[in-house]
């Protein structure tokens, strides 16, 4: 008894001593830089995985041939649970991978976590980098330092079914209002068909509506941001988008839960007349049953002839701060993001390259990329560059807002105000 009690007391004391404050980790740059061994790579898994795997496999083979003793271990992780995975990796640097693909919207929070390595010097020393589209390269920059190499650009455009529009004598939409009318007309004529497949959880498809109406996500004020969702213009945009998720176009019953991919999946399955899809979806659509019956145009703006500002999405390749294979990791990033492999990724996945000259090449020889290039040229917008964006994203602020409106749980004004509050709270939590 006595001994046990003493032991317990000692154990408790030891606990108390070691744990006054919650544990933290140290994301210092790894000091070792091994030239052999396994380089672990995280890439996102895709709806259509095989073509991506094939290109990556080729790059891995080339890399391993050129670096004897080095092995590349590629792991495909789901986009949905990336937040948990990356955080776990930042919190335990010794288990983190060396290289990862990540969305450009997450960059700010990853840098704030100290998880990503500064690759400015690597980019400077890399010949091909001179041709990188400077605007795209800028999305990897925080305080003048680059934390990733842009791997592809993701912009969204309007996919539509040529056969259906023709049958009904409908013109290709020239304004956002047209999109709604055409969508409604198609569904009226074909009740089994979605007028346009959009989703309550497809926040990036909704952004052109926000921006085309003059709204904004947030504006910078000093060293923080203020949500712009509750402005009149933003509300107009939100209202216009959510009008699409009605029974006469894309019933909320079906569409409220759709994310971007699910919306495109409906189009691929021939169940919708239009959708807002990315350049990265092109190959999948072109390989589907509707391959001969669709075309793509830039998402139109409010007035005929204008283009709605699109969200400048895209993914980067980056090196983890904690990597013990710093040089190998950077070399692999440079190989996979090289012109050669970006071209291959374009050929197999349709991902838009980030090199200006490669972009021009592919545009010249592939008519289908024109609407995407046009969208890029018309000017794009981005989410607020702050670590808080990841929190806002993970809390589903935008998704929740759209879903509340389309399911009738809140009206546009209430939902946007709530979302704006939630955003401001996240910005203010710094």
């Amino acid at each position, binding site marked *: 008894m006595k001994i046990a009690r003493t032991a317990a007391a000692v154990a408790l004391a030891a606990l108390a001593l070691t744990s006054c404050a919650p544990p933290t*980790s140290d994301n210092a740059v790894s000091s070792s830089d091994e030239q052999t061994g396994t380089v672990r790579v995280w890439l996102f898994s895709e709806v259509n995985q095989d073509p991506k795997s094939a290109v990556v496999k080729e790059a891995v083979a080339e890399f391993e041939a050129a670096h004897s003793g080095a092995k590349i271990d590629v792991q495909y992780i789901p986009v949905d649970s990336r937040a948990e995975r990356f955080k776990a990796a930042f919190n335990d640097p010794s288990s983190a991978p060396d290289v990862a693909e990540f969305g450009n919207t997450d960059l700010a929070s990853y840098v704030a976590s100290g998880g990503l390595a500064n690759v400015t010097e690597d980019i400077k020393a890399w010949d091909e980098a001179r041709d990188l589209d400077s605007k795209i390269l800028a999305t990897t920059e925080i305080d003048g330092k680059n934390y990733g190499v842009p791997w592809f650009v993701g912009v969204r455009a309007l996919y539509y079914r040529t056969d259906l529009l023709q049958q009904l004598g409908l013109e290709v939409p020239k304004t956002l209002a047209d999109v709604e009318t055409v969508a409604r007309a198609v569904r009226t004529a074909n009740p089994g068909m979605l007028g346009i497949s959009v989703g309550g959880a497809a926040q990036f498809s909704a952004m052109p509506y926000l921006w085309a109406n003059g709204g904004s996500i947030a504006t910078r004020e000093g060293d923080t941001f203020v949500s712009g969702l509750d402005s009149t213009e933003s509300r107009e945009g939100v209202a216009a988008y959510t009008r699409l998720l009605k029974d006469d176009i894309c019933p909320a019953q*079906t569409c409220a839960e759709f994310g971007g991919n699910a919306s495109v999946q409906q189009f691929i399955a021939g169940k919708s007349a239009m959708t807002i899809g990315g350049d990265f979806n092109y190959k999948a659509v072109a390989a589907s049953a509707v391959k001969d019956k669709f075309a793509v145009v830039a998402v139109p703006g409010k007035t005929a002839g204008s283009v709605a500002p699109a969200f400048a999405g895209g993914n980067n390749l980056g090196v983890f701060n904690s990597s013990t294979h710093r040089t190998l990791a950077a070399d692999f990033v440079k190989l996979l993001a090289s012109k050669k492999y970006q071209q291959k990724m374009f050929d197999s996945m349709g991902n838009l390259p980030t090199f200006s000259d490669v972009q021009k090449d592919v545009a010249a020889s592939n008519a289908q990329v024109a609407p995407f290039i046009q969208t890029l040229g018309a000017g794009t917008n981005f989410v607020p560059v702050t670590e808080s964006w990841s929190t806002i994203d993970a809390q589903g602020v935008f998704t929740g807002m759209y879903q509340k409106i389309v399911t009738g749980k809140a009206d546009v004004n209430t939902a946007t105000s709530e979302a704006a509050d939630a955003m401001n709270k996240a910005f203010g939590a710094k």
Partner: protein
Amino acid sequence: MTALAPLQAESPRGNNSTRPSGTPTADSRPVRRSKVKRGLEPWLYLAPAFIVLIALLGYPIFQLINVSLYDYRQAQVSGKAPLRFTGLENYQKLFADPQFWTVLGNTVMFAAACVVLTLLVGSTLAVLATRLRPWVRSTLFIVSLGAWATPAVTGSAVWLFLFDPTLGLVNKTLVSIGLTQFAGHSWTYDKWSGFGLVASEVVWCSFPFVLVTVYAGIQAISTEVIEAARIDGATMPRIARSIMLPMLRPIVIVVTIQSIIWNFKIFSQIYIMTNGGGIAGQNLVLNVYGYQQAFAASLYGLGSALGVIMTALLMAITLVYLRILKRTGEAL
């Protein structure tokens, strides 16, 4: 519970007062009660388990409470921002957030429904099982064990597939019998239909525990007692109520407590079947909500506060339950 008072006259051996407060009876039970104290010995046997428990449960629980008192986000974890002790701020934030109360309400209602249904289905089937032909009983047990053995991930997947809006068997069947409004019907669109779907899966995979345990309990009731009561002219319902139920009480207590614990902590089913909490978070329960706040939104402090609240809630419910039992003469 007072209705369950045993009929002493009819069941001479039906003394259901057990354990510490119970009077030692002539059987082999008093074992440990009559044991001499042997000082250190029990502690030696306890030590390995308790060292593990202290390290892997005690310490994390301590840290959970500790973290819930800090402003603890990803930047703090990475050592990029100073750690700030904020006292009860995380709790205040939660209590001021209407979403928290909604989620709390959801959790209590969903868990309560699961507990009640699980107990009801399980014990009804247990009673039924005593009256079955052996092969029918074996069939029932084997399929129940199958449901029990199904991992939460796969069970959720199968149920989700059965109720898939376009490919699911349920909608197809409903449409084929003329209910065309179910074509493409999403079962997770409506909040309560979503909870209902998840609850069905939960009951499906958790009633077997109740079934097997309660059945075992019924089997343990001596046949003579029941025969004696029958000879005395007691009717079946009366035997069930006055003899079997009191004798089953210890078992009922354990399955109830376990069901409460398990069902309040449901995570996988909600996470998978409603895709992380449903449309606009309508199907969130505390456990999933806390996990999302902590791991997805990296508000570790807030997430931990939710974990603490949840543990406290479970303890409170169990304590109230035990208190009620104590008043009616039952002890742990």
